[in-house]
């Protein structure tokens, strides 16, 4: 487990970097254009506010007793989360090649069997129903052109 204090300070640091990034990457835009605010006006105001808030959060976290912990997953829980993330990335990378319908079936079946360790029969049923719903809703009803695989599905 990690300390919530560290997590909050980390979040404050990230937000501070983002605010500085907004200030830096809008430096070529105009702050004021004639009689009206330019494209940089509001981003600069918001970046300023974010900087102040990030510092306040950092100080607030530093003053806390640091006893509260972040409930990071461990053991089987961590494996499930990492497995699901891996499955999502594989779907995103390979879905275009295999076709979304086939990829959907394999995604649900794969995550249930390999990540969530479910029995085969209910996993097959769940994968079939989900794929049918995806096909019916997006392709059948909405006419969305999802990527098709080598067999035209």
């Amino acid at each position: 487990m990690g300390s919530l204090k560290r997590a909050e300070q980390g979040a404050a640091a990230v937000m501070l970097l983002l605010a500085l990034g907004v200030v830096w990457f809008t430096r070529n835009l105009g702050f004021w254009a004639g009689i009206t605010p330019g494209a940089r006006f509001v981003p600069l105001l918001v970046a300023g506010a974010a900087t102040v808030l990030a510092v306040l959060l950092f100080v607030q976290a530093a003053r806390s007793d640091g006893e509260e912990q972040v409930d990071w997953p461990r053991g089987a829980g961590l494996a499930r989360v990492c497995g699901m993330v891996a499955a999502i990335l594989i779907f995103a990378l390979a879905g275009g090649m295999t076709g979304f319908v086939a990829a959907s079936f394999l995604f649900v079946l794969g995550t249930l069997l390999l990540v969530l360790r479910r029995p085969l029969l209910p996993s097959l049923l769940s994968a079939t129903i989900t794929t049918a719903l995806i096909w019916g809703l997006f392709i059948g009803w909405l006419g969305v052109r999802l990527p098709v695989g080598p067999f035209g599905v």
Partner: protein
Amino acid sequence: MENLTGLADGITAVMTVEGMLAIFFGVLIGQVVGALPGLGPSAGMALLLPVTFGMDAQAAVMMLAGILYGGMYGGTITSVLINVPGESSSVMTALDGHQLARQGRAGAALSVSAIGSFVAGICGTIALAIAAVGLSSIALRFNAPEFFLLALIGITASASLGSRSPIKALLMAAFGLMIAFVGIDPISGVPRLTFGYPQLMDGFDFLPVAIGLFGIAEVLVSLERLSAERPLPARFRDMWLTAREWSETRFAILRGSVIGFVVGLMPGAGATVSAFLAYVVERRFSRHPERFGHGALDGVAASESANNASVTGALAPMLALGIPGSTGTAVLLAALVLQGIRPGPTLMTDQPVLVWGLIASMFVGNVLLLIMNLPLAPVFAALLRIPYVYLAPSIVLFSLVGAYGATNSAYTMIVAIVFGGIGYQMIKADLPRAPLVLALVLAPLMEESLRQALLLSIGSPMIFVQRPFSVALLVVLAVFVALPFVAARARRRAAAGQDGRR
């Protein structure tokens, strides 16, 4: 007279096959997602946004609104039968409702929740019709300065009223605003923070951000621990209140409805605050306050009535002013914008059939939900026996395919995945996501209004104190900004007083 004509047209729009189907599927999906812990009506609405592209605007809005208030009914079932709140606003219901279920009174808890939600929904819808007309007529006199302040109030109120840490909430709102700046500047037309990528020229769309933050992120969190609670039984014959139970709860339902609607009107307060406040107030009025926390039927009635009424309350500023006060209304506003409709003061005059159709649909939707939750509650209770683990991959898949289908581009799907990761980290670090989403939705209104106001005043900020409505809104803004500090100071004094007495 015009409003009565509008209401008649709205009822006509509802009484079509497409309209009735949209309401039915909306409340059914809302009931189911409300019952699923970790998903929630906001996530359900975000996941179904891509589906609404192929629908008529009227049907789309009725369906999405149905999910929003249907989710409040659905959250009750898991709260009472499993002691797991399906929605954050059902936490108080779980506290006493599950105790009642353990005492063999699950049916009484479920039926008082259904009846209370129905009464609150109907009364809230009537109040919504009155409030929306009133707010809209005032807002027709608003101009750029007032709209800027309204947008700012919407963002700050969500931080001060709806969050345990206002600093974190405001910081996440600033994050949402920074995300919204990516793209083409709306006034000058120059690219801003696009880093030369053509995909970023359109900025970050609301849909993949919402799908990632609320769909993918919550499923990842729910996979950390797979619970195996079996729901307590709820039988059809238990689903009726006795005369004594009705006399204990009828005023709790009325008080909860009023509190819920009024609190719901305030941006950022939401159903959770409404339910908690109604519960606390009811404990003071109850003839048996000692039962609270151990199975108080009036406590359940008050909190459930309040969370339903708050949904209708939150719709009033969204429809009349274009200011969403919660994540759910933010998704609804995004759906209207995606359909080419901009909510605001002119919505009631420009699109009367849409607005009155939505209001009329809520009457129908609440009747359908009463039928689903009284005699059919044991059927939904049986659905809880399906292990959530079989639904989790399907929810993620719908998120990914829905995000892809929105623009027929893998880019949107990738954005959803990235924000899924960000949302997961935010949940673990206890950073609220609702302010981010609200800020993302309100950013265009806020920026355009501010720049237009300063254009009108030739750069002078005095325009914000020269107009009476602006001054009034500035006072409201100051109250929302000061509220957390005043509350924190009062808490410190109370703690110091208690230490002194020891």
